[in-house]
């Protein structure tokens, strides 16, 4: 075994490979958004358990914490959380439908210029994203201007 054998360079993109969507299509950005919001929601669930555990420290501690959450910075964070949940849920519905083969069309012989299932289900993507945007705007108006 020759220990001086030249070694190949590890060219795996790693985290940059999924964070940087670059010149790829709209769905590639939705992939990024779905993963980021998913991670955000998991982080929130952990924080939520810690937050509710404060009830065990007595009424004063609990009410103090609730007072903090009523402040504007926390309202904005709460809104971002709401927006992430709406996006993740609706995009998840889109992914579920495509995973069951809906709205993708049928396989067919590829003829240039090629048509892909991604393009064929894009109308559904736009409708779902428009719906998510509408719910996020309406939710924001009720949260900030009750």
């Amino acid at each position, binding site marked *: 075994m020759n220990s001086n054998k030249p070694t*190949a360079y590890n*060219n795996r993109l790693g985290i940059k490979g999924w964070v940087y969507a670059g010149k790829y299509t709209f769905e590639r950005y939705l992939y990024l958004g779905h993963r980021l919001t998913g991670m955000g929601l998991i982080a929130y669930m952990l924080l939520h358990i810690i937050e509710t555990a404060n009830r065990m420290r007595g009424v004063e501690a609990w009410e103090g914490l609730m007072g903090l959450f009523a402040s504007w910075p926390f309202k904005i964070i709460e809104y971002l959380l709401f927006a992430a949940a709406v996006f993740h849920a609706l995009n998840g519905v889109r992914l579920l439908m495509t995973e069951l083969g809906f709205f993708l069309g049928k396989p067919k012989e590829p*003829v240039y210029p090629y048509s892909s299932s991604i393009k064929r289900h894009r109308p559904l993507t736009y409708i779902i994203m428009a719906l998510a945007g509408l719910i996020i705007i309406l939710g924001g108006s009720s949260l900030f201007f009750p």
Partner: protein
Amino acid sequence: MSDKTTTPREITFRVRRFDPNVDAAPHWSEYRLNVYDGMTVLEALHEIKAQQEPTLSWRSSCRMGVCGSCGMFINELPMLACQTQVLHLGTDVVSIAPLPNYDNVKDLVPDLAPLIEKHAAVKPYIIYLDQIEIDEPTGEFLQTPDQREEFSQFTHCIKCGLCLAACPTVATDPLFLGPQALAQAYRYTADNRDCGLKDRIEAIDIFHGPYQCHLAGACSQACPKGVDPAFGIQLLKRALVLDSIGFGKKKSSVAKVSPLADVVKQIEEFAPPPRTVGK
């Protein structure tokens, strides 16, 4: 072929270089070249190698988008160098790097071994349960055009590996089977002659299998042959779901056209009459 009757345009090529015998990490080198209308990136690399940098390395063969050897990361997208015209890129500076998500052997040469290993892992062949029929066939399998259309699109894969270079899941999960292998798993699963899903499930219905795909669509965007691997993965997921709830394909739905013995008999029946002249 490039059209040398048109006015050339000077293009700067930023090429990522790496020599494992000398370099610890890759570096970029720039080459200027007069590019003619119709000149492909592969032709430009040949010109650079002939005129400016004889040690420049890459892998290519057919020059017509069939062999899948010349996959490169051109202007930050995976493409076949032989199918990409330099002036169609629309930039004065063209960056060329080896395909990401593969080990870089030298300059623009990726190590495609993981692609082939994953492809082999999903049992990319027709599995027919009756081994006696496989060894000693008694008839031809019948396949209608509609049955062929179910998987025909996925047979066009040339194993260039661009889809794995584009896939954001492969970027972070080296064990993910990836778009190429999963689309091929569907290609054989959807074939009416195949009854091997049960065998194939062990290889594909795993943590690093199709459910790691969240439909980024980058693989289908990158595919130079219109195979649409993202579509294949979604159809594979559906096949797995149907199988798990008992609605999957239980066995091959293939029928025989006719026994081979009958075919031979028919050939004998319709044979031309014996010669009567020139005996």
